[in-house]
């Protein structure tokens, strides 16, 4: 409780305002007051209209308007996007940024050096024709940072060399001992699994392989495209005509150069007549144009591609966990259809499980994802076991309280994994130098800077490194 003397001093202070003009001007209580601590003046002041206040509405007029629709007040009259426009915007892939600097020292990959071990730890540019092919198979993802740089380039990391080694093994295998190598790419979120898949496809394109890529497993199973039971199949299998036709058109567009030089040598019985002396590109194009015949044509194309003397094949899928469960399609008796009962997926799965091999050799790759993956305990367990077998560690035991999907475990029983880990410091340095050369990093790239970013990115997680170095500017 302040003493009365103290209060009096304070009140006199503001009464003396007039005599201390300089103080008064800085004083917060500058309104002229006859006596302080008195509110009577304000209370008895003439109530004048305050600024910004309009007169109340007249009695009887309607002021509340909560209507929706055309006559609603303040309605948004902007132009609505056309059908498909927003999706196109969402899926748009931008591969070039004219504001980024051109990296003079950037070397391009070519057919001869793409599998070379010397590439490790370097950022190398993708040639244009491969970029077009990769775009055709939808290998680029919107989440990847291609739009930040002048032109697409990629870092050859340790895992990339490993994949290149696999491709070399397939190519070098002699006649009669062709290899089908199967790998599932695993790793942390944003560690570069999809990018590694892209690099594998890139190498395959450069080495003139035939590439069949299922860009996103989710699109196959979420029941957004037509389906129909396959006649004479037991247990019933389901074809997806629209999706298969789209896939055929992708295959034809991406592998144009290779398929054009391969003539049709078998005599397939197809619902649609094939012109005589046609090549495989024409075959695929017919399938793309006639969705109702797309599945028989896909089969015919596959039979052609597996004839002796044909190039090796690469078969890839991203977002693996989506196909390791029931799809959103319903069978005639309103039961969910297992993804393995869809013909395209069962075709892929038979190669992934090793049940069917590629007679001309090839690579079957599947990338898992951690961003958008429905839970599939059987797959997670199988991959963990495979990881422990490959990289060492205690093999886990199945949790008996979880539902086991036998079909999934049988497929992934002896599959091998390829773990995509963090970048090493040297790789991170190379990547950061490339960022700096593109004008995306302004500071000096030295030991301290690399170490800081490498640690911030969770021991060199590739996506996080991009995030901390160029996306997040403090």
């Amino acid at each position, binding site marked *: 409780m302040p003493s009365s003397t103290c209060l009096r001093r304070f009140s006199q202070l503001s009464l003396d305002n007039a005599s201390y003009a300089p103080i008064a001007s800085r004083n917060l209580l500058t309104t002229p007051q006859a006596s302080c601590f008195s509110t009577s003046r304000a209370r008895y002041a003439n109530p004048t209209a305050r600024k910004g206040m309009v007169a109340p509405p007249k009695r009887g007029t309607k002021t509340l308007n909560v209507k929706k629709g055309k006559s609603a007040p303040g309605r948004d009259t902007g132009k609505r996007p056309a059908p498909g426009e927003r999706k196109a915007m969402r899926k748009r892939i931008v591969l070039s940024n004219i504001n980024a600097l051109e990296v003079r020292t950037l070397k391009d990959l070519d057919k001869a050096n793409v599998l070379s071990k010397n590439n490790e730890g370097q950022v190398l540019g993708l040639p244009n024709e491969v970029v077009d092919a990769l775009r055709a198979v939808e290998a680029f993802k919107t989440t990847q940072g291609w739009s930040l740089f002048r032109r697409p380039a990629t870092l050859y990391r340790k895992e990339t060399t490993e994949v290149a080694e696999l491709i070399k093994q397939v190519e070098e295998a002699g006649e009669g001992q062709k290899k089908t190598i199967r790998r599932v790419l695993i790793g942390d979120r944003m560690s570069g699994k999809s990018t590694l898949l892209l690099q594998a496809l890139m190498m395959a394109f450069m080495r003139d392989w035939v590439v069949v890529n299922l860009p996103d497993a989710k699109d196959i199973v979420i*029941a957004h*495209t*037509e389906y129909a039971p396959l006649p004479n199949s037991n247990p019933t299998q*389901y074809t997806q005509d629209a999706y298969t036709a789209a896939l055929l058109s992708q295959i034809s567009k991406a592998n144009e150069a290779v398929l054009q030089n391969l003539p049709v040598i078998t005599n397939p019985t197809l619902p649609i007549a094939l012109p005589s002396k046609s090549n495989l590109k024409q075959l695929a194009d017919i399938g793309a144009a006639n969705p109702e015949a797309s599945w028989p044509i896909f089969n015919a194309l596959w039979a052609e591609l597996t004839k002796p003397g044909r190039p090796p094949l690469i078969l890839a899928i991203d977002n693996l966990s989506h196909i390791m469960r029931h799809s959103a*399609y*319903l*069978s*005639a008796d*309103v039961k969910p259809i297992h993804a393995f009962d869809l013909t395209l997926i069962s075709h892929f799965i038979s190669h992934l499980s090793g049940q069917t091999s590629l007679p001309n050799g090839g690579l079957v790759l599947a990338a898992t994802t951690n961003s958008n993956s429905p839970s599939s305990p059987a797959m997670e367990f199988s991959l963990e076991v495979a990881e422990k077998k490959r990289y060492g560690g205690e093999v886990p035991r199945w949790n008996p309280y979880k539902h086991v999907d036998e079909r999934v475990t049988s497929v992934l029983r002896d599959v091998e994994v390829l773990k995509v880990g963090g970048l090493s410091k040297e790789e991170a340095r190379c990547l950061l130098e490339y960022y700096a050369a593109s004008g995306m990093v302004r500071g000096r790239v030295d030991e301290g800077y690399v170490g800081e970013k490498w640690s911030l990115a969770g021991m060199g997680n590739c996506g996080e490194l991009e995030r901390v170095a160029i996306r997040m500017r403090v």
Partner: protein
Amino acid sequence: MVFIFGFNFPEQTLVKRSLETFYGIGPKVSRRIMARFHIHHTEKVGSLRNPQILDLNAELSNMKIENDLRREVQDNIRRLRDMGTYRGRRHAMGLPVRGQRTRTQITTARKLNKMERGGSGRVQM
């Protein structure tokens, strides 16, 4: 425009939505019908193939929907009333049938508990 069960639907309408405009078809029944003819849940009426539309029409004409179903419901209510049961009387008076309070909150009952339950004729979308 596509004809389903004698009604016209614009091509961009979802099959599910167009089926559910019929009295007697809700989410469950439409799901069952669509699964039976292998129509996925985002399919538009315009992309249905002709045999599928014929199958759908045949299936719908075998089902008790629309006016047949309305008639059955109304007959049930009429039977209750003609027997002189309490439930029939409550229906006739437009009051709650199953022992709910009537002091407040009976708008739903007033709206629905009528002899002509379900209205007459198809209510267009």
